[in-house]
């Protein structure tokens, strides 16, 4: 779908080579993407992002507000999006849980916004300062009801920067909340981050409506399936609600409207999944074992994979850059060509279930779980690869 692209505003782009951690890179990515509203609440290990925003955003003409809790943070984000800004917030597990109701509201109102979850060990207060990847399913299913979202999974501070820009572009393209699911390891890891000049950063503009005011319908899908959006103060006198609504935005509480409404919300992502999904593959051709991973685990798995390859095992890798929508088709396609998938995750098996569902029994999917608090021992992943190749 062809959408208008604009160049980034140089004010927000800190061009150059930097040595910064993932948290800071998220903030820089957001500012480069044109984010000018941050409403957040401090929570380890995401606080650094909020601190960076509080320092940088007043200098680029934006607003930072530390809200009273995460519920207020996400609500203020939705308000800010309808006020015309590109908003972002960061949080971790407990805050993520608090945000769930309003994430549903953002989906229902088709509001573009970005939420970053720097995952930590859970459940509950868990391990505030230590890593985990235990909220992956929650990103997709956390709020009540049926809806679709997009989630990206960076594996380095550089990717934190790049994928945040992509997150904003995806949010504006599909009018949906987009999650950047990173973890404490990547968030607190200091690495080189190269920020390009503003002219080299392409941004997707919001789908603004500029037709006759009295004919504006806030939820009428355009040819590409995405409705036009407006902001308050421009005289459109629109109404939008969290109730099931029709094209006018008015509540219509019956099964027929629910059918139309939900199909629209879900299909705008599902039918465009091929355009949204990004995977990084290596040596898949002729591979017998494919190691699937995302986030920090993909870097940890590299050591195990090198060791296995040295021993002559044909190991391919698949890194999920987009965690949701899940690349079901690719899994199903590969399942008949390979011996097994090996899926390490820093949780007791979350995305691996999606993999199992996608392969439909054509090949085994071996889970390499981890309780959280630290990354895998590469030996465990290597052992799983060895086991699977037998």
């Amino acid at each position, binding site marked *: 779908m062809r959408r208008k692209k604009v160049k980034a505003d140089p004010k927000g782009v800190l061009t150059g080579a930097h040595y910064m951690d993932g948290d800071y890179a998220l903030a820089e990515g957001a500012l480069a993407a044109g984010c000018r509203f941050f409403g957040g609440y401090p929570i380890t290990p995401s606080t650094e992002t909020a601190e960076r925003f509080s320092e940088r955003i007043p*200098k680029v003409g934006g607003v930072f507000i530390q809200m009273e809790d995460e519920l207020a943070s996400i609500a203020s984000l939705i308000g800010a999006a309808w006020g015309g800004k590109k908003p972002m917030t960061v949080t971790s597990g407990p805050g993520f849980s608090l945000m769930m109701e309003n994430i549903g509201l953002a989906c229902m109102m088709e509001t573009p916004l970005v939420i970053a979850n720097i995952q930590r060990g859970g459940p509950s207060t868990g391990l505030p300062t230590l890593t985990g990847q235990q909220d992956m399913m929650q990103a997709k299913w956390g709020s009540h009801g049926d809806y679709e979202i997009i989630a990206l999974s960076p594996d380095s501070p550089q990717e934190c920067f790049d994928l945040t820009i992509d997150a904003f572009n995806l949010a504006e393209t599909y009018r949906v909340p987009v999650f950047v699911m990173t973890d404490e390891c990547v968030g607190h890891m200091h690495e080189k981050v190269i920020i390009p000049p503003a002219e080299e950063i392409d941004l997707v503009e919001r789908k603004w409506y500029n037709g006759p005011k009295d004919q504006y319908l806030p939820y009428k899908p355009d040819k590409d399936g995405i409705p036009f959006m407006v902001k308050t*103060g421009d005289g459109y006198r629109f109404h939008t609600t969290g109730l099931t609504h029709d094209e006018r935005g008015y509540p219509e509480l019956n099964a027929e409207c629910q059918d139309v409404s939900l199909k629209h919300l879900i299909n705008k992502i599902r039918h465009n999944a091929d355009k949204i999904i990004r995977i990084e593959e290596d040596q898949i051709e002729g591979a017998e074992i494919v190691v699937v991973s995302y986030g920090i685990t993909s870097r940890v798995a590299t050591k195990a994979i090198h060791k296995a390859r040295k021993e002559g095992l044909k190991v391919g890798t698949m890194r999920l850059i987009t965690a949701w929508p899940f690349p079901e088709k690719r899994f199903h396609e590969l399942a008949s060509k390979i011996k097994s998938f090996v899926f390490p995750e820093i949780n007791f098996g979350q995305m691996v279930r999606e993999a199992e569902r996608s392969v439909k029994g054509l090949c085994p999917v071996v889970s390499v779980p981890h309780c959280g608090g630290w990354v895998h021992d590469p030996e465990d992943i290597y052992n799983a690869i060895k086991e699977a190749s037998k």
Partner: protein
Amino acid sequence: MNDEAQNKGQNPIEGLLRMDRIPHIWCPGCGIGTVVTSFAEALKKSGLDLDKVAVVSGIGCTGRVAGYIKLDSFHTTHGRAIPFATGLKLANPEVNVVVFSGDGDLAGIGGNHLIHAARRNMDLTVICVNNFNYAMTGGQVAATTPQNANASTAPYGNFEFPFSLPNLVESAGATYVARWTALHLRRVTKSIQEALLKPGFSFIEVITPCVTLYARRNRLGDGLNLLKYYYDNSEIRHGADTKELDISYQGKLIVGKFVDKEKPTFIDAMNTHMGEVLGDDYEKYGRINDD
């Protein structure tokens, strides 16, 4: 039917209502419609550009107001109207944001947001329609239900101590606090008008009858009886100490404009402070509140 055809388009309030959604869902004798008319009057009298007024409501009977008013209106989640309005206002400071919600929504689940927005002196006008219960879900006890009143989840009478909303918001830092009953039509209109034009956090509590639930459960008659009771037992005391505004069950109601003071709004304070600290590095945000 004949009347509708004759009268079509003539009722002055119709310009501000989404006529395709009228008749509304409120009960006969409910005071919310009256508050909406007072609000509409206030909007007209204030002279504000109506394209630049937004209404945000939460969930509940009063929460449905957003659906009937023909301005940029948002029907958000329960209790989160105020932070939504905060984000809306900060993203677009030109817009005059009004939060129109009920006592359960604003002071119950939304209590935290109410006090923080008041503390920050966010430039919002909050109209809290107080009917002393959670009406939409069937009349449950709320943070504002007077002691000894009956509610569906307090079938033996409420033993909890209710909020005095003007006291709550004044202590939190609101700069305009008023309380009226729904029958104080012109005064409600005037208060809303003043609040719309005044920068800072303005809070207007309007006590309205809830016929089907509060009145029925407590055998207080119909809407008219309760409206009459509230009005007849109210005493206007402008500038009264908000600590003395507790409402007892079927007791005296003190109404009036209690607080009207000046304090920099969130955006003003941000601009002043950041301007001082960052100097030229800082870009002034929004417009200067000099009216």
